[in-house]
């Protein structure tokens, strides 16, 4: 019987297999950041252990870093201490680190791919759930906890139980103005936040094959929001073209050998998935969330659902709670929802194509009065590229704030937060209660919808901007 992509990559990394034990998997790339590593390094120290493979380990600073005044000392002493702890640990153990101010600094899941370190057929781990992003290259990429971070540092392996596999086949053509973000939000709304539990998702089909690497990363990034262990897309020419010439991509004969191997990394025709989902790309439209988990979403053209329409008691209860928290009423058209803040950034939508898409919509327009728009590039490299293309000017002229790279308002560990009751349209990945600041309310959207929303001050798609009846929401309402 044939094997799926996930099974092939898994099998290629088994260090040890024994009856009644999880497989011991070798890890090709371990990414570190300041939040989930301090206790792991402490564990190494307590047990007199070293980092087994410094050459497969890399660290950056992202969650806590400020996006303003980065040349000044970090104001929050606790954040500063955490960054200093990472610097001290990396120096002591010899780990390569890209700290704040470095040209390779940025959100860990933006940095790995852009350095060419994320490659097809690799196992990638990081103490961060959005490690699933790297699956866009046909890598098997898992988010792990701090105990596992310590385990990988000490042994370069992880004991893991083999996941099941789910194929998500998306056929057809995405309509104009419908993006990878809309697609993944629609998938999560369909299968639910627990729908991928225990599975590695493989996205496939003609609509996926047509996506750029950056769009594929947006999709795989949010696999975790469907509860999945990982998300993957088979590598193809798009993948190879993205990688060729990057800092850590193989060269010459090594490149040829790598590509020959990478070409074998696709699910066999007779491979059997444990579950399958089919999506018709042509039926999709811009998609936004109305609730407090990423599965609570609907097409932008729809209205806030009535909790009474849910048959399942716990879903009904969750919808009731969500509407209360979000300050919404059933039946309210989603397009009528006004926002105070628009955030463009994160490991979901903080790459150059995302900034281009947002700038494209904003060009020659203004952010509505009373709306604050933050544009936070995913990495310093993305920022530099954007500046080279003049995107920063587009944002600034529109009245948006152009910030330094980092996680920023995606989780509000730095000063970029929503105030209680404030509402955002955000290109990030989580609309949990308080995620972007205590009492803050988050609607997840694509970069295009974020930009159009900034202009109109209410949830909107770019198509709404050309509609003659479209006017900005009056300020202060």
């Amino acid at each position, binding site marked *: 019987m044939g094997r799926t992509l996930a099974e092939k990559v898994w099998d290629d990394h088994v*260090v040890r297999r024994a009856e*009644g034990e999880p497989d011991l998997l*070798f890890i*090709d*790339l371990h990414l570190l950041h300041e*939040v*989930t590593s*301090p*206790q792991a390094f*402490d564990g190494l120290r307590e047990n007199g*252990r070293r980092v087994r493979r410094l*050459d*497969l380990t*890399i660290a950056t600073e992202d*969650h*806590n870093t400020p996006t303003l005044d980065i040349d000044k000392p970090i104001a*929050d002493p*606790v954040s500063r201490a*955490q960054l200093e*702890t990472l610097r001290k640990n990396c120096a002591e153990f010899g780990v*390569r680190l890209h700290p704040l101010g470095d040209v390779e600094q940025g959100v860990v899941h933006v940095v790995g791919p852009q350095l060419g*370190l994320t*490659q097809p057929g*690799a196992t990638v781990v990081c103490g*961060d*759930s959005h490690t699933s992003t790297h699956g866009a290259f046909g890598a098997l990429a898992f*988010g*792990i*906890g701090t*105990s596992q971070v310590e*385990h990988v540092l*000490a*042994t*370069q392996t992880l*004991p893991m139980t083999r996941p099941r596999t789910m194929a998500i086949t998306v056929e057809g053509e995405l309509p104009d103005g419908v993006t990878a973000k809309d697609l993944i939000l629609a998938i999560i709304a369909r299968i639910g*936040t*627990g729908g991928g*539990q225990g599975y590695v998702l493989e996205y496939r089909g003609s609509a996926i094959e047509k996506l750029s690497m950056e769009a594929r990363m947006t999709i795989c990034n949010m696999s*975790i929001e469907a*509860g999945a262990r990982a998300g993957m897309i088979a590598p193809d020419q798009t993948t190879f073209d993205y990688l060729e010439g990057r800092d*850590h*991509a*193989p060269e010459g004969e*090594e*490149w040829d050998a*790598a590509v020959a*191997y990478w070409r074998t990394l696709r699910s066999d025709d007779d491979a059997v998935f444990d579950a399958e989902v089919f999506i018709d790309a042509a039926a999709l439209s811009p998609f936004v969330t109305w609730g407090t*988990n990423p599965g609570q979403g609907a097409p932008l053209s729809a209205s806030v659902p009535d909790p009474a329409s849910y048959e399942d008691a*716990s*879903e009904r*209860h*969750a919808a009731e*709670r969500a509407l209360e928290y979000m300050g919404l009423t059933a039946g309210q058209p989603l397009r009528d929802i006004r926002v105070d803040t628009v955030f463009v950034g994160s490991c979901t939508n903080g790459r150059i194509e995302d900034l281009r898409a947002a700038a494209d919509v904003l060009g020659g327009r203004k952010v509505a009065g009373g709306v604050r728009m933050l544009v936070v590039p995913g990495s310093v490299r993305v920022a530099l590229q954007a500046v080279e293309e003049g995107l920063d000017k587009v944002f600034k002229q529109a009245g948006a704030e152009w910030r330094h790279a980092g996680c920023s308002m995606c989780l*509000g*560990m730095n000063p970029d937060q929503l105030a209680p009751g404030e509402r955002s349209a955000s290109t990030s990945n*989580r609309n949990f*209660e*308080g*995620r972007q600041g*205590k009492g803050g309310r988050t609607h997840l959207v694509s970069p295009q919808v974020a930009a159009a929303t900034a202009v109109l001050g209410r949830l909107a798609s770019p198509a709404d901007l050309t509609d003659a009846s479209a006017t900005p929401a009056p300020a202060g309402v």
Partner: protein
Amino acid sequence: MEAFTTHSGRAVPLRRSNVDTDQIIPAHWLKKVTRHGFEDGLFEAWRRDDDFVLNHRERQGATVLVAGPDFGTGSSREHAVWALQNYGFKAVISSRFADIFRGNSLKNGLLTVVLPQETVELLWELTEADPGAGITVDLPAREVRAEGVVAAFELDEHARWRLLNGLDDISLTLQNEADITAYETSRHSFKPRTIEV
């Protein structure tokens, strides 16, 4: 890791589904660099409400959390597990846990027990009717017991053995270091390196 065998304690009924890790421990707590001191961050936003179940007098000292489905979704932060343990919880019961959270809990000796939603409902009713009611989580027997409830649960043999003995994964893996070394010599030469060594 602390060994887990059998635990009996009073319960806290948490009638909510999709309790994500941002609710269990908000991000600003993640700046701490230790594994302790997270107890005050546990469910921080909800605890500001006096009516929140954890704040009820009769729930003080309870050690078994009985939660709705999809507990622990969201981030990989192990701080969520530490916060529950620091607060005093020894076991969490739910009909479904997020994968990473479950993995983290079992690595720290916090027993996460999967029971059918109907059983969870029974336990909720029991502890709501009588906050003093005890729930026993018996790992050797793989069984949860309370008045009128005897429910078997599954846990793979390997995880159970590690928990019962409080074994540390890293030491176990290092017993097979020769396998790791052998694997390392067979890796493709085109695989990337972050630094030259």
